[in-house]
């Protein structure tokens, strides 16, 4: 959710390549837009930049600085500036990324994802004391921010320092949408999507609503109610929006209305099989 874009652009250099970028854009987005691979664990384009994982650090030099002087900044939070020089893969950058990954590997020794990322930065095994845990949460808080974005704020970070963890202090607000679990880069949130018509996540069990005709799972009643409320809040009140039907059924229904599709019922029956 970046700033309202203006037409103003700034000119900068990233890894020796010159680029014009819209004012207000972050270095990370601009670099990635140029096809430069900048690693990151906590950035998600749809969510407020957070700056917690420290993997996207890059070195910068502003015009007018002494030649030898560079500064390490978080590229997901640093807006581009006129005349800025950026290095995304210098020795200093790589060294700090490797320490950060080393620390993460000690935090989540069971995470394959982090281990693979560590390998890319030359860390085969952590040099620090491993936590004795199967937990793979790296505290990127993408889940927490996503939950807030969809308007529920059921989950949050609790405690602080090394003991900080993600939990569900607002259990009633959880609608079982599974967005948190699906966005988690290290699959740290356990859930069961559909176990005999039941869904489980965050120690909460949900019923599931299915499309009458196709049997497709539409979501939990809490989820559907939330979307409905949201749609109504946005002035969307047509009945099709709120009907508990799958996309497929909605399409057939619409086509039938427009041209009296003959074989709708048969085809839906086929699909259901």
């Amino acid at each position, binding site marked *: 959710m970046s700033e309202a874009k203006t037409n103003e652009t700034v000119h900068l250099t990233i890894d020796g390549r010159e680029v014009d970028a819209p004012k207000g854009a972050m270095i990370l987005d601009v670099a990635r837009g140029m096809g430069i691979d900048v690693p990151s664990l906590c950035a998600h384009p749809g969510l407020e930049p957070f700056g917690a994982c420290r993997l996207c650090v890059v070195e910068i030099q502003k015009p007018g600085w002494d030649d030898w002087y560079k500064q390490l900044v978080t590229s997901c939070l640093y807006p581009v500036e006129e005349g800025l020089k950026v290095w995304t893969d210098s020795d200093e950058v790589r060294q700090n990324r490797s320490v950060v990954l080393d620390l993460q590997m000690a935090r989540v020794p069971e995470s394959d994802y982090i281990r693979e990322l560590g390998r890319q930065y030359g860390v085969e095994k952590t040099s620090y004391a491993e936590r004795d845990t199967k937990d793979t949460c790296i505290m990127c808080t993408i889940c927490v921010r996503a939950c807030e974005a969809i308007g529920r704020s059921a989950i949050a970070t609790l405690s602080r320092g090394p003991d900080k963890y993600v939990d569900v202090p607002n259990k009633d607000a959880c609608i079982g949408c599974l967005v948190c679990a699906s966005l988690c880069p290290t699959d740290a949130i356990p859930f069961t999507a559909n176990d005999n018509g039941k869904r489980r996540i965050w120690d909460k069990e949900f019923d599931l609503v299915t499309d009458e005709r196709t049997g497709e799972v539409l979501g939990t009643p809490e989820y559907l109610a939330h979307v409905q409320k949201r749609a109504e809040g946005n002035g969307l009140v047509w009945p099709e929006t709120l009907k508990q039907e799958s996309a497929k*059924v909605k399409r057939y229904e619409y086509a039938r209305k427009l041209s009296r599709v003959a074989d709708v019922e048969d085809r839906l029956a086929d699909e259901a099989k």
Partner: protein
Amino acid sequence: MSKRLYVTPYRCIDCKVCEQACSLANTPVPGVPARPRVQSFKVDDQNNFVLLCLQCDEPSCQAVCPVGALERNPETGAIEVNDKCIGCGFCVRACPFGCMDYDDTHNEYIKCDVCKGDPACAKYCPTGALVWSDKPWTDQEAEEYAKKKSSDPFTIALEMTKK
């Protein structure tokens, strides 16, 4: 006037070429077809129908999206899903026409984006039922086009894979 996708249902022969073309053109993993964004129906012995996103003036999908992942491309006029998507699926529920969908093969939310201005469905449609043009075609134009275009699925498939 800028180009649009014009649908003329009575020219549709329900050959499914549009679906096939869409599926191959939009897959993020070459060789693994994606769920098509367009669908053709058989109405009765004489009539067929093609349905794809209407690119509404006031799109419901965009209205319910919590992160601004649905934006109109000013060049094509189409609503596109961008990388901001967090996968909440609100848009699927909100679209009254079922044109917002979830592709469970590739785990992404999909809709017709007119292939960023070069729709594959229209490109391969053998009859001119789907046309990417600045105005609807006359029947004559469509006939002339159809004569040149092969409707043989095998030929079309070859043509598609050439790209």
